[in-house]
């Protein structure tokens, strides 16, 4: 789905047949574009004490303000070294990431050498383009070294998943201009204004002439969010809702026959609505906008999902709701003090894997990153991951601490059956996070007794055996560091 460099999709014929756009539009734009080369390093989840493999990839960026470059988050993810190149300038400029928003795949770069911006002009942001109107895509895709321009029309505007984080969906515009690896981060222009940032597409064997760009409402939201110096992420109501189309449903909930109101099915206890909304409430209006029985509302002339309202909010804002609770109308104000606190279900970047090594047993918190590296057989792990939010697994296990692997040693010869187990208790203390596991295992005790979720036997390690094995395991497997725990990366 995602456009990354060096995955050749279709050949360059369509790409190279760039059309000559009107000269007035083209020249200032060319100067304000940059090819971004990223030398990145993937985290190593199998042996987290070792650095991961390095890779190089490239994408496109453009001047968004007098001294900043905008691009996709995935172009600069896990970067160790970033360089920028401009057309007709032999120099390579060293850049660094100032802000990155993985949930909407956007990033802002700074350039060390201010001379980069000599002769560049920030590109202006436009609005949402009309369906069927023409747009041009600028960038440095595969198939050549120089700037490429392709042209197409706006095919549709829709709420779509963003492949980079894997769990977020925002407004997306589909265009039929060729978008290829390397185009990522490049501007899509109409009448001299940026109307989107090319960011993802399909590989040629899935669908053709389908490219997606991030539209300007998402870009503007990102720019406003970081205007105070930090990115606070999207706000989310963290509730599940259900339609009230059925007449009996409306009658049972005490609703009028006006096709209004969406039923609040569940309220996540870690979300912002907890304490303000209750399962069983009916939301009649949000910020004064009436909510229809299918959960949509009209926002700026478009019928959109109710969640869109929260999409446009920032940390510290609030949402006003008119609700029906126990058949009584009331108004509630839901403050938005923070984004959803758990990140383990999203693809994560620029994080070092947390781990704990004890007696040759490797403990790691369950995450999407871990699951994409290691193939687990234990169905319980899959269940805990999938049910993490809907079944509120996070209440008992804000981190799901998994015994992922063994560094084979006489101390753990008989412990194979515990692989992929979820730690529940160590020496009688309940374990909710990797940090707690580390603390429990650092308290001296004759035996370390680890209980796992389920009905198996406890895992028992004898202190003397652990101590005797420690150096042996470190030497044999080249472990420089026995744990890395950064609780902020949950």
């Amino acid at each position, binding site marked *: 789905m995602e456009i990354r460099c060096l995955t050749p999709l279709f050949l360059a014929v369509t790409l190279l047949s760039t059309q000559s756009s009107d000269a007035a539009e083209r020249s200032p734009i060319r100067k304000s574009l940059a090819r971004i080369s990223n030398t990145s390093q993937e985290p190593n989840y199998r042996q987290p004490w070792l650095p991961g493999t390095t890779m190089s990839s490239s994408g496109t960026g453009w001047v968004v303000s007098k001294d900043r470059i905008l691009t996709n988050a995935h172009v600069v993810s896990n970067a160790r070294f970033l360089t920028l190149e401009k057309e007709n300038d032999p120099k390579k400029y060293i850049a660094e990431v100032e802000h990155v928003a993985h949930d909407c795949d956007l990033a802002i770069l700074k350039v060390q050498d201010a001379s980069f911006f000599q002769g560049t002009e920030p590109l202006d942001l436009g609005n949402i383009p009309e369906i069927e109107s023409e747009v041009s895509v600028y960038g440095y895709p595969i198939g050549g070294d120089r700037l490429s321009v392709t042209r197409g029309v706006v095919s549709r505007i829709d709420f779509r998943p963003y492949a980079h984080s894997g769990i977020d969906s925002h407004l997306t515009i589909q265009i039929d201009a060729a978008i290829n690896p390397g185009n990522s981060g490049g501007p899509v222009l109409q009448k001299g204004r940026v109307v989107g940032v090319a960011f993802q597409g399909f590989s040629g064997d899935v669908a053709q002439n389908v490219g997606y760009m991030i539209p300007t409402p998402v870009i503007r939201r990102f720019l406003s969010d970081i205007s105070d110096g930090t990115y606070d992420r999207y706000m989310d109501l963290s509730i599940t809702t259900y339609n009230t189309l059925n007449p009996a449903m409306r009658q049972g909930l005490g609703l009028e026959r006006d096709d209004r109101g969406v039923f609040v099915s569940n309220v996540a206890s870690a979300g912002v609505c907890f304490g303000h909304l209750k399962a069983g409430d009916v939301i009649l209006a949000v910020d004064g906008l009436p909510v229809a029985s299918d959960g949509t509302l009209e926002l700026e002339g478009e019928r959109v999902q109710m969640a869109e309202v929260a999409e446009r909010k920032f940390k510290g804002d609030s949402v006003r709701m008119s609700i029906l609770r126990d058949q009584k109308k009331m108004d509630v104000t839901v403050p938005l003090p923070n984004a959803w606190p758990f990140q383990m279900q999203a693809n994560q970047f620029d994080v070092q894997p947390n781990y704990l090594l004890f007696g040759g047993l490797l403990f790691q918190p369950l995450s999407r990153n871990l699951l994409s590296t290691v193939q687990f057989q234990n169905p319980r792990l899959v269940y805990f991951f999938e049910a993490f939010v809907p079944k509120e697994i996070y209440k008992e296990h804000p981190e799901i601490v998994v015994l992922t692997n063994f560094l084979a040693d006489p101390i753990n010869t008989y412990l194979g059956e515990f692989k992929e187990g979820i730690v529940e208790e160590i020496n009688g203390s309940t374990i909710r996070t990797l940090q707690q596991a580390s603390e429990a295992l650092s308290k001296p005790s004759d035996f370390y007794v680890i209980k796992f979720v389920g009905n198996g*036997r406890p895992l028992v390690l004898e202190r003397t055996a652990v101590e005797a094995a420690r150096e042996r395991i470190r030497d044999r497997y080249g472990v420089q560091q026995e744990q890395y725990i950064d609780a902020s990366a949950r």
Partner: protein
Amino acid sequence: MSRPILVLSALVSAALVSAPAISDAKTAAAPDSVLNAPNQAQFLQNIVKVTVTAQAYDFSRPWSKRAPNARRAIGTVIDGGRVLVTAECVANATYIELESADGEQKQAARVEYVDYESDLALLRPESAPFLANKAGLKLTTPNVGDQLSVLQLEANGNPLFSTGKMTTAEVVRYPIDDSSFLAGRLSVSLQMRDAAFALPVLKEGKLAGVMLRYDAQSSIMDFIPTAVVDHFLRDASKSPYEGFPRMGCSFSTTRDPQLRKYLKLNGTNGGVLVTQVLKDGPADKAGLRKEDVLLEIAGEPIDSDGNYKDATYGRISLGHLVCTKHFEGDKVRVRLSRNGTSVEAEVPVSRRSPGSYLSEPYVIDKAPNFFILGGLVFQELSRQYLKEFGSDWQRKAPLELLNIDRTQSETDSETRKRVIILTRVLPSDVTVGYEDLRNLVLKSINGEVINDLSDVPKALQKAANGVHRIEFAGDPSLIFIDVKSAEAVGPSLQKSYGLPALNRMN
């Protein structure tokens, strides 16, 4: 246990295309030693072809059955004019026909006893004369190292023997999940004829076992040895049939020296750690507890891997000692170590019926229950239902339901007998807005907690304000259905979806 089932179905299709009756000189020339010509005719009197027509219920459309299919087995006549086959081949049977080996006589038969856990069944001909004058094969014990013959029949009724060596005797999983019994393993190359079930395994003209499964790739056959057959036959001689008893607890090995120290097992050898005791099960009644270490069962020392020393088969799993060497209600003496002190107890071993599970491990020969309310289809959760999601049901079935099925032994439910799920919606005027609902766990109807399908019609009597209030554990957590229209739509639902009935509550 999808693998053995797959192997069997592969055999069935292979049998359909294979050309009959061209016997291979090598396999046919190695008949069981006592079977010279005159004996052979007499011997074949005790062998019958069994053709089963089976029709299983479709658990995803519980009101209908699947298309019938045919299975062929070779039955062994047992003392008393009855025919021994595997349970798997008579599962969901609608018609069973016996045919003498020479093809001259045919007779309809019925299942007299069937035990899906030990995978054995006894058939009785509908009218007596068919097997009259047949002595029945005697049983003999197969030993590891024995040369055993597997009997098949050619289309003309001639026997085809394939001989191989018994390599192992081990407690393994039987076709029904969660059932493990002793199986013999035979290294034998079989050319399958049209019967793919219950091939007799012979030793010196006597029955040593019945084929459980055969893997053509590795030429390995697992068979049900006479130790298990004998238990089944003894149970079948009593009424009611009682089946193979269990202790009602789970164990784990204690080989790890660190674990042994922690459990204070320093001065002892062997023993297994009790990790779970089924509430109100035999072990619970005998006072066994989690973290006890089981050292001895019926006087036999248990080693740290959970094996005992069997007089015939050497080190094999204690499961054989408990299930096959004992009968329902036997009081089995056990010796335990509890916190380092020795304790003795008597466990009144007993079979756990599939009906006592929250999610039944198998539902065979039984129509699935269901209840349709205005197009909402309610059913009991069972593993049979989950298996409707295909051969990789363990990944394809809804996670929440899989999790309930998998972890049911971890949660003691005092009141909940069954998990009732909304499996699907047959869209009607009444269900507008609810068309996409499926596989939701039902919590309550009209405030009444649902512990069983029979609770559903009772709870529907308690509607208030003309609507039924239906709560689920999941999303949506609540829906309402109009009482009158749900009732009224019944006949038209039946008509448009071709439902023979709106519920089945057995």
